[in-house]
């Protein structure tokens, strides 16, 4: 177990190094095998820790409990989808001359590094290390966002790096203050588990500031309004697989960080302190996403704003904090991660085919590009929370928990926001998907299998989870109990 836990972050790292080497073919496919192995390892760990066990190596440098295992699974699945799809995508990018072999190599390497950083972030017990890893994701993705050296992509990456780094720096201050508090509490430590056990002795005054700053910092990374500003630009400019990873897991990793902080904060300051903060941010995110979706013209930004909406939901779930809410939140992470990955990958294919990200230029997709168009449509339906996709179950659970916790007003407000989002996404979705092409010019043959299969797989998986979770059920329960004991 320890070996697996330790090796998991290294798999992508190694793959990344290989990717830098000259032989591209191998590089691309090792990039696929690494996430697959991560997935397997995550599954093994999951089965182990679901029983409440904890795997710990190097006094907490690596510590995998149920929550970490859940996140590892999430990262593994999404990374698998993104990388598998990515092979075909990069080939097409090179073919279309948006980049060259060198660019492709760097791309593969950075993607792996990005995944590795995220894995570190979720499988360490040390808040400091977690912080370092989160900052590392920013650096890894900086060049991925700017992968096409266009004006827009450069602009996006500049904004992304500056805003995200500033945010994470704020989080660093928070971490420092936590350490400060622990120093004057039970003894200096940055280990989450120790902080939790010693939460009683931490000085509330310092912790209040610390927690606030941590939430602001990681909230920036998660894209909570009003700190979301970089997200639409970065997610819409990055290459599809990277957008998939950023939207699908990176935001969830940030939320994960907030959840870890929340545990300590709840023990030291009581649940209400963070609840107010998260509730405001969450509801604000949902409403803002709705407002900005109303007049949207770019389908990748559309997906990005939908991410903001879903992060808002997660924040609300965290704010409610009951067992049901947290379980719903975790399930929502998983469902949203996969669905959003599929959505972005499909959108990438549409971009390759049409050469434009404007909704107006991409119509009648179901007729022109049945496979990816269909996948895009289904992903939208999933993101809008239609059964059998699991997002319906999780949203329902979060709202249920909200009413049960006497936060009916917030839940109702959220429901209203979701209604607006729904209307907006539906109007643009139908504009893109339905109808018959005005010009009979077909967009060449439908995309190749390696780009379609992962999308189909992802959709089937989300639908399946929405009906029956099977072995994931106990893991989710265990993970939920880590946060809301």
């Amino acid at each position: 177990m320890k070996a697996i836990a330790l090796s998991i972050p290294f798999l992508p790292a190694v793959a990344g190094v290989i990717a830098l080497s000259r032989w591209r073919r191998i590089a691309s496919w090792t990039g696929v095998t690494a996430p697959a192995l991560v997935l397997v390892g995550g599954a093994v760990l999951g089965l182990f820790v679901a029983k409440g066990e904890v795997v710990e190596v190097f006094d907490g440098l690596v510590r995998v409990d149920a929550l970490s295992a859940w996140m590892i699974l999430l990262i593994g699945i999404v990374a698998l989808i993104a990388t598998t799809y990515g092979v075909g995508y990069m080939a097409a990018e090179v073919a279309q001359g948006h980049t060259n072999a060198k660019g492709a190599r760097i791309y593969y390497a950075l993607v792996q590094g990005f995944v590795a950083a995220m894995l570190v972030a979720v499988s360490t017990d040390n808040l400091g290390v977690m912080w370092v890893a989160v900052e590392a994701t920013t650096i890894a993705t900086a060049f991925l966002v700017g992968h096409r050296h266009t004006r827009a992509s450069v602009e996006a990456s500049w904004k992304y790096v500056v805003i995200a780094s500033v945010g994470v720096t704020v989080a660093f201050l928070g971490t420092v203050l936590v350490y400060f508090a622990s120093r004057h509490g039970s003894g200096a430590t940055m280990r989450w588990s120790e902080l939790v056990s010693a939460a009683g002795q931490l000085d509330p005054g310092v912790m209040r500031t610390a927690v606030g700053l941590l939430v602001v910092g990681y909230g920036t990374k998660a894209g909570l309004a009003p700190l979301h500003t970089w997200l639409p630009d970065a997610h819409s400019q990055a290459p599809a697989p990277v957008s998939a990873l950023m939207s699908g897991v990176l935001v969830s990793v940030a939320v994960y960080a907030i959840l870890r902080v929340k545990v300590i904060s709840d023990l030291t300051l009581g649940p209400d302190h963070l609840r107010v903060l998260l509730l405001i941010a969450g509801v604000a995110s949902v409403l803002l996403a709705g407002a900005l979706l109303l007049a949207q013209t770019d389908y990748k930004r559309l997906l990005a704003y939908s991410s903001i909406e879903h992060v808002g939901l997660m924040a609300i779930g965290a704010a409610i904090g009951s067992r049901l809410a947290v379980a719903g939140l975790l399930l929502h992470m998983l469902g949203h991660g996969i669905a959003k990955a599929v959505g972005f990958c499909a959108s990438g294919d549409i971009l390759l085919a049409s050469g434009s990200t404007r909704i107006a230029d991409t119509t009648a997709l179901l007729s022109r590009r049945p496979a990816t168009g269909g996948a895009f449509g289904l992903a939208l339906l999933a993101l809008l929370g239609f059964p059998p996709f699991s997002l319906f179950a999780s949203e329902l659970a979060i709202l249920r928990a909200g009413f049960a916790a006497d936060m009916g007003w917030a839940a109702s407000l959220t429901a209203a926001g979701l209604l607006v989002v729904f209307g907006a996404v539906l109007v643009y979705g139908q504009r893109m998907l339905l109808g018959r092409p005005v010009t009979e010019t077909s967009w060449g043959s439908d995309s190749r299998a390696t780009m379609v299969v992962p999308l189909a797989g992802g959709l089937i998986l989300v639908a399946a989870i929405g009906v029956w979770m099977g072995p994931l059920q106990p893991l989710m329960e265990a993970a939920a109990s880590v946060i809301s004991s």
Partner: protein
Amino acid sequence: MSLTLASWVGALGACAVATIAALALRKPFRVWAVGALSAVGGILGSVSAVSVLAGVQNGTVELPGVLPLAGARFELDPLGAVFVLIAGAVTVAASVYGIGYSGHGLDGRVVQAVFPLFVMSLLLVPAAASVSTLLVSWELMAVTSLVLVAAEHRERPEVREAAWWYGVMTHLSLAAIMVSLLWFAARAGGESFVELRAAADRMPDVVRSSVFLLALTGFGAKAGMVPLHVWLPRAHPEAPSHVSALLSGVMVKLGIYGLLRVGWDLLGGGPAWWGTTVLVLGAVSALFGILHALVADDLKRLLAYSTTENVGLILVGVGAAGIYASGGDRRLAAVAVTASLLHVVNHALFKGLLFLGAGSVLLKSGTRLLDRLGGLARRMPVTTACFGVGSLAIAALPPLNGFASEWLLLKSLVHEVADPPVVVATVMPLAVGVVALTGGLAAATFVKAFGTGFLALPRSSNAEAATEVSASMRFGMVALAMACVGLGLVPNLVVAPLQRSVQALTGLADGPGVEVVGLGMETAGAAGRLAPGVIAVALAIAVAAVTATGWIMKVRRHRRRVAAWACGRTVQTARMEYTSTSFAEPLQRVFDDFLRPELDLDVSHTSESRYYLEAVRFRIGITDAFESRLYRPLVERLRRLGEYARVLQNGSIHLYLGYMLVVVLVVLVLSR
């Protein structure tokens, strides 16, 4: 495993298999497989419903593993059974009809695969026995129907518009229901219907009433109740006709189901104003619907609006029942709700029939516009006969099934309370007036639909070229037509078992509302009796007598065909016929202030003299007031709000960092 459960699960299984078959098989087989298997599902579904209504046993299923974080719980009780019954019955006809109807363009994988899923959802919703289960089934129904509504998006641009309206309104309905039921569940401390029932009377009135109003909004939107009906006249016409039959015949009714279930079963009824609200909304819907149906010239749009009308009538019954029950007169309440449920069943049958008929016309003539139809009676005899039966039934004419329920409804409104409360004394007479006027207008509407659509001369070459439809489609229509006649002759077939469902509504009734006396049915308390069967027999005898007299008086039997009196012109052309527009004109004028039609008349004169006309063009457009005055401005306002909101995201990194600075400062100051 009881018969109920076995057949119900069997039905679901059949649908599932149908979906798989649709995905697996190739075209010609696909359509057949889906049609047949869905039909089987329909039959099994009705069997389960019948066994419940016959009092065999309620079917209960608990699947804690399924449906993450909630667990699925189903129970098929007499109230739900009514709706499973109509779902099954209409499904049988619709899916067999679909075999022939899908031959042309609708045989794609997606549509064929989703249709059985839609049927499945229709069987699931009435059996759901917990909040989450209900909501999931409800959304499953929403998404499948949405896909089916959009099925023909390649053919007509309106389809996409329709799909959007439908999607938004159906999600509005979900949001309202969700808030209502989750609130309820939170107060009850559990989400199974049993717990909800138990907790209902422990809740403060404010909560009860708000839960009720939210439920009314949500389910009303699905039922097509004014002012939440706007999606209905868009979606139903654009959907493939056999789907429209299910939408209008069954899905819309599930709104009624939800209202009854939440309002008078789970909440156990409430103050009089609940009933009054429902009744008034119902009355408005009925009048609004029928008036728009009257002036519609698109056959399927006409049918859709008439659905709003019928839902209105059903709601009038429900509301009346609520009022009576709150006044303590549970006997009359039982009568009223029996009337509503009976009308639910009847409307499912004849509206399904009418939509199938309209589908046949559309398929063969390629148009839905009444002003371009006509002369089908000779070209499509079976379709014409079936549509005729449907029209007479929906016009509530004896001896067809519409009459029975309309009669019961009126009986329940023409009450004999000793000294009624003011509400009853003032509302009921008006309700009678509305129901009567609606009935009259419905008759006019369907004389127009059937007369101008099927009789006399064809008004266009398409109609001229129409031919009778294929066997499978004929089967679908004939089956429903026979059901209409059958229930018309012997309504007791349904009325008697319905009494079980009435009992289930603990908030309304504690005894049967309608007693069965031989062929006749008698409203509780012998207030009046009706035996439609006898009427039919009497009619038959009368006809026989007249013909016999004819023979006796040696009237010539042979008929000679001669030209009609065409005002002196030798030939009579279709252009001389009254069009549907002109048929409706007098009534449209009577209700001008209400319908506010936009007329435009342009007359072009010949160049020689302004006393000679070149051409006269007359156009009349009637828009849905709620759509043009309520929804469109709302949507527009939202869109503008979206435009304003974009300022927040104006691209300046300095602004973005400014947000962060402010947030950080606030956090620092607040956590001081």
